[in-house]
């Protein structure tokens, strides 16, 4: 009896390093050899896609790269596919970031990949760089763009940019997209753009913030959201550009499965222990 209890104790207090190694293995294998599991498409992603699809050509869209390098693996694929769709639809994106390195990430990882031939900087898209000061900075940007970003990412005065001639405040935006991993995040965008200027908002969410976004989507303050890498994968399928997100989702699935199995084992150990105890007691 006590022997089986010893094993159960060991399972319950498993060395965490065993879990860690399991995690590494279960993520590495699908990356090397993907399984191609089907990806059902969520309603919230479709509603984001439809909204962008229906915007008239040439509409100005604000894209908030509210992430640092660390959030990139999750938010980058969403930003990339949004930007690709925006360029495909001939909309005019304005890139900004309240994170110190967001605008740089856009220049390094998104634009070179997603830009279409014939698009000219300053006419078809602009990168206004970093907005310091958190929500205060965003509020100022919304009421007058040049108040916090007099020059763009490359140091050109904003007045000299062709596209910005008729765009002075958030009232000129037809849509705002924010992909954020903290502050500034969807809440700041909601308060400063949507509530104050009525700009529709699409959120490229981290899966962890989805529970916080769902109530806003339910109350129709957010027109659509994509849910993390999963959402990016769904969007890639919707726009017929399957890429990184679709390929990586298998690894996510296998990780979830392994964690679930671990949880089951942990609980079985508890139940079994209770059973053993009961038997010893009688």
């Amino acid at each position, binding site marked *: 009896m006590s022997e089986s209890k010893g094993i159960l104790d060991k399972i319950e207090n498993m060395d965490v390093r065993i879990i860690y190694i399991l995690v590494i293995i279960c993520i590495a294998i699908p990356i090397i050899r993907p399984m191609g599991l089907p990806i059902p498409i969520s309603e919230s992603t479709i509603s984001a896609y439809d909204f962008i699809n229906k915007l008239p050509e040439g509409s100005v869209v604000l894209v908030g790269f509210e992430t*640092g*390098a*660390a959030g990139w693996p999750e938010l980058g694929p969403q930003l990339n596919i949004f930007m690709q769709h925006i360029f495909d639809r001939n909309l005019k994106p304005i890139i900004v970031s309240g994170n110190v390195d967001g605008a740089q990430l856009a220049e390094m990882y998104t634009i070179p990949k997603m830009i279409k031939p014939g698009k000219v900087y300053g006419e078809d898209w602009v990168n206004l760089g970093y907005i310091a*000061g958190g929500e205060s900075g965003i509020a100022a940007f919304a009421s007058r763009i040049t108040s916090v970003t007099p020059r763009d990412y490359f140091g050109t005065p904003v007045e000299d940019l062709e596209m910005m001639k008729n765009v002075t405040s958030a009232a000129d935006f037809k849509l705002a997209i924010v992909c954020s991993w903290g*502050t*500034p995040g969807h809440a*700041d965008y909601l308060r400063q753009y949507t509530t104050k200027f009525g700009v529709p908002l699409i959120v490229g969410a981290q899966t962890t913030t989805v529970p916080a976004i769902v109530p806003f989507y339910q109350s129709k303050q957010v027109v659509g959201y994509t849910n993390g890498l999963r959402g990016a994968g769904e969007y890639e399928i919707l726009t017929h550009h399957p890429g990184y997100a679709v390929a990586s989702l298998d690894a996510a699935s296998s990780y979830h499965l392994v964690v679930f199995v671990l949880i089951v084992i942990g609980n079985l150990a508890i139940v079994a222990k209770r059973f053993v105890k009961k038997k010893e007691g009688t």
Partner: protein
Amino acid sequence: MVDTILVPGKTVPLIVFLVIVVSMYLMMRYASKGKVPTIRTLPAYGAITEAVGRAVEVGKPVHYTTGTYTFVGQTAGGSAALTAGLSLLAYISDLCLSKGATLISSCAYPEVMTIESEILRGSYLKAGMGDEYAEVEHLRYVPIVSSCAPFAAGVAGWIEREKPATNFLLGPFFFESLIIAEAGYHAGCFQVAGTTSAGYSAFFLACCDYVLIGEELYAAAALATNDPIQAGSLRGNDVNRVWIIALIVIGVVVTLLGMKTALVNLLSI
């Protein structure tokens, strides 16, 4: 005239804003005049003394952090939790000094560091040990910019190396919460945590011995400071909660009667 000055659609929000602010102000005034409301018992608050006691027994330091938040450019909920965390820092620092435990606090922003340093210095002065306070030894400053990764790395690494007896995580947190709390769990720390973010409360429930969930953090701060104003503002929250609950119930009833649109329109002025 009024129409042109008042921003359209902001009438009801303005009224709500004024109702909340005025009711809170009144509650604070009542409290400061001696009608201090009692705050319900919080097991996690009681655990603070136990946690410090354990550190004294083992002879190892107490670690404290409010997480990677600052007052500048953050959300109101965050500022509120940070302020509560700082109030609790003052309380715990006094407790540590009176019992003979060493408290070491980690912070991530210069503004917060300035404030924490003042709190700790004040606490040492109060205990008559003003000379023993040294910022370099009692405050660990791990600067961060946009990502809390360096802070998480610095604090988790330190906990693994120094193995403090007790770990307090009280304040607003980002993802560093889990990294630090897991490091504390594996280093065998007694952990008391509290935050106003739902997501990170869930983390703490898994790793910590006692957790203050959401507003319980504000309540603990009010208990710790013994400040009637803070207790009054908690009463203010409760008063406002009453009309919020009532309005939801009324709204549901009105919807039952089929007049939802009228009410929503009325509330959207």
